[in-house]
């Protein structure tokens, strides 16, 4: 069964949590006892309707304030697919959590309040979805019930959104607009007929047919080595296998590979998945690869096909999103983690910070603060073997780790 990962985002009170609650409710995914707990909790809050958003706001602070602070993961299945929704915060100060939620998504779901139209957060969310190159974008114009289900209003918002799209750097996203009312369930999982002028898919219909994984085979083959398996038992005395997850592309038994950084070449002898012997390892499969020859390879190294080798970088130019309270300053050193490989790195220069609402680039900045997005140049202590994020996202992203408190302070997308 396929897994489809969706990230939802919207501004405060766009009704994001209600929309997710509605999806769960309409796909019969809420057990009776949870439903009863919802009724009771809504009543305690003095509401005269069942607040479906209480389903996902899992933290005490969130329920108190009626907002989403951190990413919540929600699961539901249809007979076709398993869905994982990352429900991400809309508040500007939690943007880093939004990036976290969106980083694994194949579909970005952006909510717009029909009364308010495009707001600053919409720009920010779209910018991030575009930066992350999420292949599908669904724009749900919500609260249509509060604008009398007006077609003109919907069209106006679509038009405004198109203007934003025309400024985007990544033009390859498929964008779909749907007028909905999550409170009444209109065009979420079913049609109640109130919006007669809209003949298109409901949200769920659209999600059910989104096709993905189609690009995987076009990407170059990359196999970051997580560990070397050497059992040294009598039975497997000479076994030496490289454990890892195929980051992109695919490998076949017999393929000629090169190990980076050593540059040694060999051929794939076996591809193993527990007791099974495979002939091919596909994208995102966790396998063990053995080679014909004894070559020098260990954790953090990468096996690639000799026909398509990644660039060797010691100077990295990248867009980064800063995620820490402590500001980034020119010249500071961090640990750069690219896949499973860590190297020391120094941020040499902040080239510019991008204003995500109008795409203007502000140069001459010496520091970057929480939630800033901008272009930096980084120098690494040892080479990394990466692809440009736009060519191969799975091998083109990294994180920066603060050496002193060990926290993740930034995510980067290599040029």
């Amino acid at each position, binding site marked *: *069964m396929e897994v489809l990962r969706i990230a939802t985002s919207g501004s405060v009170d766009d009704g994001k949590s209600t929309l997710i609650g509605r999806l769960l409710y309409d796909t019969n995914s809420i057990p009776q006892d949870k439903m009863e707990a919802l009724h009771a909790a809504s009543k305690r809050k003095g509401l005269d309707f069942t607040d479906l958003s209480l389903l996902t706001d899992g933290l005490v602070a969130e329920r108190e304030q009626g907002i989403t602070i951190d990413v919540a*993961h929600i699961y539901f299945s249809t007979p076709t697919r398993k869905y994982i929704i990352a429900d991400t915060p809309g508040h500007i100060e939690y943007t880093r959590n939004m990036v976290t939620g969106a980083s694994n998504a194949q579909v970005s779901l952006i909510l717009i309040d029909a009364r308010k139209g495009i707001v600053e957060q919409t720009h920010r969310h779209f910018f991030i979805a575009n930066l992350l190159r999420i292949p599908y974008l669904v724009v749900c114009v919500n609260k249509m019930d509060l604008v009398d289900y007006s077609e003109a209003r919907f069209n106006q918002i679509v038009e405004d959104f198109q203007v934003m799209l025309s400024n985007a750097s990544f033009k390859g996203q498929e964008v779909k607009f749907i007028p909905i009312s999550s409170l009444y369930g209109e065009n979420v999982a079913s049609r109640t007929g109130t919006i007669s002028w809209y003949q298109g898919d409901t949200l769920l219909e659209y999600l059910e047919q989104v096709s993905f994984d189609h690009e995987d085979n076009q990407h170059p083959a990359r196999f970051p080595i997580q560990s070397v398996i050497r059992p040294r038992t009598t039975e497997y005395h000479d076994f030496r296998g490289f454990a890892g997850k195929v980051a992109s592309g695919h490998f076949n038994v017999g393929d000629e590979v090169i190990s980076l950084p050593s540059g040694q070449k060999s051929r794939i002898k076996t591809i193993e998945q527990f007791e099974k012997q495979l002939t091919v390892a596909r994208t995102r499969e966790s396998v063990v690869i053995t080679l014909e020859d004894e070559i020098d390879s260990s954790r953090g190294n990468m096996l690639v096909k000799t026909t398509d080798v990644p660039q060797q970088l010691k100077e990295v130019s990248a867009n980064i999103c800063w995620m820490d309270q402590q500001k980034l300053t020119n010249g500071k050193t961090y640990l750069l983690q690219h896949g*499973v490989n860590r190297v020391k790195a120094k941020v040499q220069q902040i080239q510019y910070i991008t204003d995500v609402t109008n795409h203007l680039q502000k140069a001459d900045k010496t520091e970057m603060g929480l939630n800033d997005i901008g272009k930096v140049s980084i120098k690494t202590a040892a080479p990394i073997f990466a692809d440009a994020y736009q060519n191969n996202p799975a091998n083109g992203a990294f994180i920066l780790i603060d050496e002193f408190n060990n926290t993740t302070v930034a995510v980067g997308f290599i040029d």
Partner: protein
Amino acid sequence: MTNQINWEFPQALEDEAIYILRETVAQFEKPVLLFSGGKDSITLVRLAQKAFYPGKIPFSLLHVDTGHNFPETIAFRDWLVNTLGLDIIVRNVQDSIDQGKVQEETGKYASRNALQTVTLLDAIEEGKFDACIGGARRDEEKARAKERIFSVRDEFGQWNAKMQRPELFDILNGKINIGENVRVFPISNWTELDVWNYIVREKLEIPSIYFSHEREIIERDGLYWPYSSFLNTTADEVPFRQKVRFRTVGDMTCTAAVLSEADKLEDIIAEIMEAKISERGARIDDKRSEAAMEKRKQAGYF
């Protein structure tokens, strides 16, 4: 929309879990697998077996025995450990009680569920474990839905929900400060149904209490409680025999039974698909308040 049963296990979930387990072993000095004898930790053992094959599982299991476990669970644990040749460390809540570190609860709702956190934290400190692999899933409960895959805990085992590290793509940052440790959740993205479909696919053995059997129970607060010497009952709570099974494996004092005739995995799955009560709905420990789980997590509960 009607839910048809989809028996196919999403393979992507296994690949992800194996990747996480391999990262855990590579990034930490001394990981340990928290084993409860329930289906989720049994699934973890299987995943660990696969992740390091043909090598052995490179870490021990740790079982915090409350003393209130179902005897069937303990028997199963010993069988599994022997069959697979695993290392296991068992620490007893009774010892923490004897040492005066925790106090037994009283009254008819007394359970050792909250007490086991202290025993667990002591065991982590004693074993110098820097990563504890757990079988928690985000679909279980709404505070768990917020947790990262590598979840950093401070010296007191506490989870700070507002200060969680961002987790980007599949890049896992396991760097921690001295005194901190990480809880690792490889099956975060699995649902209850995924676990069951996996058990079917992998033909895994599970404790007998998951299947329908006849047992002495009492009825309290609309739930069926397993009758045992650990349960404090009132005079009007008279045990009776009934065909039941358990959806989760916890203590005998805080795990409610469901009436069921399901004695095969296929029947269990069919039952879950139709079930009106969520999995943790049968966990009495979660019912104490709306934020019960979040509070316990802050206190270091796994």
